[in-house]
């Protein structure tokens, strides 16, 4: 009986994944095999720049999500009252499940020249004219991506800290460790797996973000995904789009692979059985 189930499952997965084994062949529209597309990526500085810019923005977003997210997760995990925890968690989950599209374009209303922020600032008198640098530039991209992926950082860190043995801090205090030392040597290492997973969950989507930068980035909004998308649209260079995609996936997989060596999700999975 179980054998039947075991067969169904993998087969099912295999089937759907054959869909994913997409043909990223470097064929020209005339279907000759060549590596032109890849060459152009590495030689043309424009493409290279955009990839680098995307990676950089991704890193910046991660930094901010950690700055905001870690304290939040810490606060969440250190609550005594279960009810507070549940409420706060719920409040974190609702944006998590809300559509990327909605959460992105709502920012337009906030940051535009006649948006909420400017309206507030001018009516209070802090500035005389509305600030035009809030929207359609990197600032907007960063702040919206941070908002978008903050739950992705908070939730893993919270999940890990939730299992944290707080009495260890007690022990550290008994051993005369100062607050900072206690934090650095006890809390931080414990939170590390969560931080790493959070890093992945924030970095990867941020680097490859498409909807948000396109809506909010203006002329500075071209990131690597936008470049890829245009190859399948107006630029009509499918091979280049495919090649770019592969490069991006490769770089990201590299990052994932390196980090997987440090954190092993499936070990965590099995360790859970001992609990």
């Amino acid at each position, binding site marked *: *009986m*179980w054998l039947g*189930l075991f067969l169904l*499952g*993998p087969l*099912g*997965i295999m*089937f*759907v*994944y054959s*869909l*994913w084994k*997409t*043909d*990223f062949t470097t064929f020209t529209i005339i279907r000759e095999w060549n590596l032109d597309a890849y060459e152009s990526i590495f030689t043309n500085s424009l493409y290279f720049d955009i990839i680098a810019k995307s990676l950089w923005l991704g890193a910046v977003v991660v930094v901010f999500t950690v700055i905001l997210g870690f*304290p*939040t997760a*810490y*606060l969440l995990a*250190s*609550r*005594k009252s279960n009810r507070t925890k549940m409420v706060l968690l719920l*409040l*974190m989950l*609702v*944006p998590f499940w*809300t*559509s*990327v599209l*909605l*959460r992105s*374009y*709502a*920012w337009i*209303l*906030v940051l535009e020249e*006649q948006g*909420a922020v400017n*309206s507030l600032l001018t*009516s209070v008198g802090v500035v005389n004219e509305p600030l035009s640098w809030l929207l359609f530039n990197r600032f907007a991209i960063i702040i*919206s991506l941070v*908002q978008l992926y*903050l739950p992705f950082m908070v939730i893993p860190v919270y999940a890990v800290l939730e299992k944290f*043995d*707080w009495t260890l801090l007690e022990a550290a205090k008994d051993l005369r460790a100062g607050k900072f030392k206690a934090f650095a040597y006890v809390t931080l290492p414990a939170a590390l797996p969560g931080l790493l997973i959070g890093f992945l969950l924030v970095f*990867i989507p941020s*680097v*490859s973000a*498409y*909807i948000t930068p396109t809506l909010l980035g203006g002329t500075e909004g071209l990131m690597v*995904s936008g470049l*890829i998308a245009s190859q*399948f649209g107006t630029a009509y260079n*499918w091979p280049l789009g*495919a090649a770019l995609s592969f490069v991006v996936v490769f770089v*990201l*997989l590299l990052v994932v692979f390196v980090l997987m060596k440090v954190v092993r999700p*499936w070990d965590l*999975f099995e360790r*859970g059985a001992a609990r």
Partner: protein
Amino acid sequence: MAAAVRARDGRRPLYKRLNAAGVLLIVLAVLSYALLYLPAVIMGVMSFNDAQLPLFPLEGFTWHWYGELFSSSEVKDSFLNSLTIAGATMVISLLIGTPAAFALVRGRFKGRNVLFTIVLLPLVTPTLILAVALLLFFNFIGAGLGVLQVIAGHVLITLPFTVLIMALRLFGFDRSLEEAARDLRARPLQVLLRVTLPLMFPGVLAAALFAFLLSWDEVLIAFFNIDNRSTLPIFIWTSLRHRITLELVSLGTLLAALTAVLVVVAWLTMSKKKTAPPQEGAE
């Protein structure tokens, strides 16, 4: 020993050690939540604006833009398409994902870790790249564009979640219940249907909800692979490329509110089910 208030597991209430670090912690956390909700709140407020353009300052209160939504045939069509696609995705994803979860958790076969990695693969792949990859694939096999293609793509991205949620649920499963059923001479199929699956029900619900919501909100795979029809996210996306209108603002608020309600309801149901003691057989 210290006399400060402490929970059994050593947690301390924050107010007992409120210092610079504590304050900073709270400030940052509050800021985080504020940042998360700011755009949505603003959007909600704006959706009632009695004006022509979504600009501040607000000019008055009206339900007009919500009304516009209900009379728009474009919105209705997109809504129905989204519903169909999301529903189909949910069902298929569960059908494939559940056996897969069983295989992963209970199977003892050689490629298990590999399978696990493959299952998680769509998670680390950027959605846009998946979208264009699917486009290339369907083009290659001659399938072209269409709703079925979109459903296939959506199943692809929801599968990791379905499998994970079901596997997690299966993981914490008390097998002695199944053994008990077998001792009572139930056939394997009966054990499955009357013991295992009913007890997995919360997991099934969670996975179903997740799959549905994920497909419902998905715009990129849909956009690149659909024929000339449209889903709600596609409609919003293409309209936004022109300019943002109050209609869109109302639609956005509505959808966001819907999601929020769903999440809260699911959450409450889930919490209740967790605390309820396991019953014999079905709920």
